[in-house]
């Protein structure tokens, strides 16, 4: 009787442990797969209440993601817009007269519009600095945001093979929350390859103001030209 009870206990324990092992294997397998899926949460936690992932895992264009950039049509800026050329002559940014120069890194150009110290419209052009590529742009940009100054970032759309004035480009639409002050911005960021130089154009606004300024940002990107 006692021996039979021991056998039953051992058999039960073995069954439970085996089931646990199988469940753990399945859980880890599905978890690692999720890190590679577009738009899914990946590693770590920002602690932010927002539904952002610490590092958005989406790394390339996908059919649904391209919709966020369907507005793109390269073309000249409105006649009354101003133009500023990147030092070195590699790119030309067009912007509306309501914007004014903003402080930025040497060798870049930044134009923007602020109210009460709050940046409402931000345009920036920077020569290629790191490992940016046309094919890996989405992965690079969203990863760079969280490596640099964002506590979280989310890829909202991406497209490659865009024909800018002067060369091909890849773009993302994303939103992120800054480490400092937890400001939530939404941006269009494109890497564009010119005949002589490659550059990045960024057009951003607070996420809450996208409805108001989004079309302006799109127009600035549409008119961006490289050489």
């Amino acid at each position, binding site marked *: 009787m006692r021996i039979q009870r021991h056998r039953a206990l051992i058999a039960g324990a073995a069954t439970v*442990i085996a089931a646990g*092992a199988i469940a753990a294997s399945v859980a*880890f397998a599905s978890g690692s797969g999720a890190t590679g899926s577009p738009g899914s949460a990946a590693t770590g936690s920002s602690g932010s209440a927002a539904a952002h992932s610490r590092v958005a895992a989406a790394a390339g264009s996908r059919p649904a993601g391209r919709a966020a950039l369907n507005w793109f049509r390269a073309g000249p800026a409105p006649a009354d817009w101003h133009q500023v050329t990147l030092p070195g002559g590699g790119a030309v940014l067009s912007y509306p007269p309501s914007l004014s120069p903003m402080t930025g890194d040497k060798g870049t150009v930044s134009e923007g519009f602020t109210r009460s110290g709050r940046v409402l419209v931000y345009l920036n052009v920077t020569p290629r600095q*790191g490992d940016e590529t046309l094919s890996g742009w989405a992965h690079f940009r969203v990863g760079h945001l969280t490596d640099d100054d964002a506590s979280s970032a989310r890829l909202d759309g991406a497209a490659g093979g865009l024909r800018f004035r002067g060369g091909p480009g890849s773009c993302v639409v994303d939103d992120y929350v800054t480490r400092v002050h937890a400001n939530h911005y939404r941006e269009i960021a494109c890497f564009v390859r010119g005949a002589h130089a490659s550059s990045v154009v960024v057009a951003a606004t607070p996420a809450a103001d996208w409805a108001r300024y989004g079309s302006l940002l799109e127009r600035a990107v549409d008119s961006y030209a490289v050489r």
Partner: protein
Amino acid sequence: MTSRRLIAILFGAVIALVTACGGGSSSAPASHPSSSPPHSSSSASTGAAAKQKSSGGIPQNGGGDHDSDNNGGPSDGDGNI
């Protein structure tokens, strides 16, 4: 089924559980770089060091860097840390 056989099964199940947990924890870090840019290995260093590392790039950190994005502003197009 003998008690010895059942103990062997129990031992095997424990080994399987330990292997599953161990394998999972070691694969998690491996998935991290796949969602980070190629230069993310330098993120362990300070921002200043990482920026100084850039070759032929825009001067950073006292060398001309006036990033608004370091103060809660929008991120610029600088591809360096």
